[in-house]
């Protein structure tokens, strides 16, 4: 079965902060080929991720997916993050991830709880499409309650519209 490695977008709006600036270190894979991470230092080089890779592999160290205003669709620059984390989840069945969904401050707080959850669920679907299984993923929404940036303008808002990938078990 051919599992497409590219994530197909419902709508492509690419504005603001690029979520994954460093793409070069993970080699894009061909269908049916195992991807290889050049700077992996796993003890056994079988092409599978190990827990230490979470701290050493550049793509796995990217833990945040960003979103456009009022949207929950995954942007193209997040594809690589989702690919490597999806593979990690497939390689490590014991891994558990909490997907923490957030929204910027505009609009009502309760609606933003829903928006944060919708984003978390979108990342969950994408990770499952990339190899993770539903039982490894749990979505929690904080709405607009846990911003990382303060300020009533887009430079702060764009940083707050995000899903954080948090490993609760490696």
């Amino acid at each position: 079965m051919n599992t497409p490695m590219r994530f197909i977008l419902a709508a492509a709006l690419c504005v603001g902060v690029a979520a994954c600036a460093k793409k070069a270190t993970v080699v894009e894979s061909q269908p049916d080929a195992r991807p290889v991470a050049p700077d992996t230092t796993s003890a056994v080089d079988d092409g599978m991720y190990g827990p230490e890779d979470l701290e050493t592999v550049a793509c796995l160290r990217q833990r945040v997916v960003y979103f456009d205003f009022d949207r929950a669709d995954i942007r193209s620059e997040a594809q690589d993050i989702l690919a490597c984390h999806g593979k990690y989840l497939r390689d490590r069945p014991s891994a558990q991830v909490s997907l923490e969904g957030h929204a910027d401050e505009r609009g009502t707080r309760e609606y933003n709880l829903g928006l944060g959850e919708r984003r978390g669920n979108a990342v969950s679907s994408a990770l499952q499409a990339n190899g993770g299984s539903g039982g490894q993923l749990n979505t929690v929404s904080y709405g607009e309650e846990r911003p990382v940036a303060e300020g009533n303008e887009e430079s702060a808002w764009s940083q707050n519209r995000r899903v954080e990938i948090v490993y609760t078990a490696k």
Partner: protein
Amino acid sequence: MTPRIVLLALLLLGSHGAALAQGGLSGDEPRLEIRNGVAAAIPIAVVPFALESAGLPPDTDVAAVIAADLNRVGQFRTLARQDVVEYPGREAEVKFPTWRVLKQDFLVVGRVQDAEGGAYRIEFELFDVAKQQRILGMALTARAGDLRGAAHQIADLVYEKIIGIRGAFWTRIAYITSIGKLKDRQYALMVADSDGYNPQTVVRTREPLLSPAWSPDGRRIAYVSFERGNSSIYVQEVSTGQRQVLASYKGINGAPAFSPDGSKLALTLSMSGNPEIYVMDIESRRVTQVTRHFSIDTEANWTPDGRSLVFTSDRAGKPQLYQIPVTGGDATRLTFAGEYNAGGVISWDGKQFAMVQGNGNMYRIAVLDRSLGSPGETRVLSPGNLDEAPSYAPNGSMLIYAASEGSRGVLNVVSADARVRQRLVLADGDVREPAWSPFRQR
């Protein structure tokens, strides 16, 4: 140190198409002048009350509290203190020509006397200046520490006598404070008098709090807290601090709202996969699903007859207000003006809906007035640009809402006719999520 709310400047705005609360609950005819379709503010003089007690003067200026209340509601304009030239304390001392010359329609006088046990007895009288007649005279007893409460009750009685609707000055507000930056924040749920005085902490956490909702008897507050890691709904007795978790399901637990009879709670749960409105029977904790749609359905509030819920849904693409029977069924869309409408609250008579209306980056409080039928007229009450969380006073005469001043959240009270807006500011930190209490029980 308990944060103090300090009342700041009174902002007088131009009046715009007044939609004043109608209806005579007390049986008297409403006394309003309508000129050119716009009701003028009623001039009223509140004379400093005579101090007839033996001990130290009380630290509360009762007349000033009454005057501030009457000014806040937009329908009155009180005579400035410096223009009060005579100080009658009782009917025998009132010279009506003085007040006619000062163009006052009404006059309030009173006196503070000692009562048993260190309490005060406050007597007040209300006069119709043109008719040269006393139209109200009463006495209240107030504990030493609660002269403000007595003053608010007097303002309510004066308001009701003239306007014909129960006053809402002797009420409280609940709100959330957030102090500190980003990850070091501390949150508190607070309750204060509705003019911001006497704040008390109800609960304090290191995790976010939101959506406080009063029970109809004013004794409990339901709220959302993240102290368990995920959102959960608590209900807490205000006087004792006792609380319990009502909902902590997988997913979102949000937007609690008590039914008018206090026996049920509308809430938002996403355990089925997306946020839906449910109704919980509080005693049995049994929940029944009301909405069934893949969109975000949240922020339910009850119509006064307890039979329908008004809620926010993005089933049409962006959030709008809808109405649905409590028993479930078809949802009817209510809002058609503005690209974003959310957080709807309903006035006591079920005819006005206040909400957050968004257009681009501008978020303001708007009111949909359906007193003349549907679809109704929408008017904007606040300047923006990040206004949210409107809550009605129980008589519909005022709204409190959250606004942003720079990086700090503040609360504003705006009169329903949009004539007057006042800011309440917390000494430190950020204030949000106000909820106006029901009428207080004497």
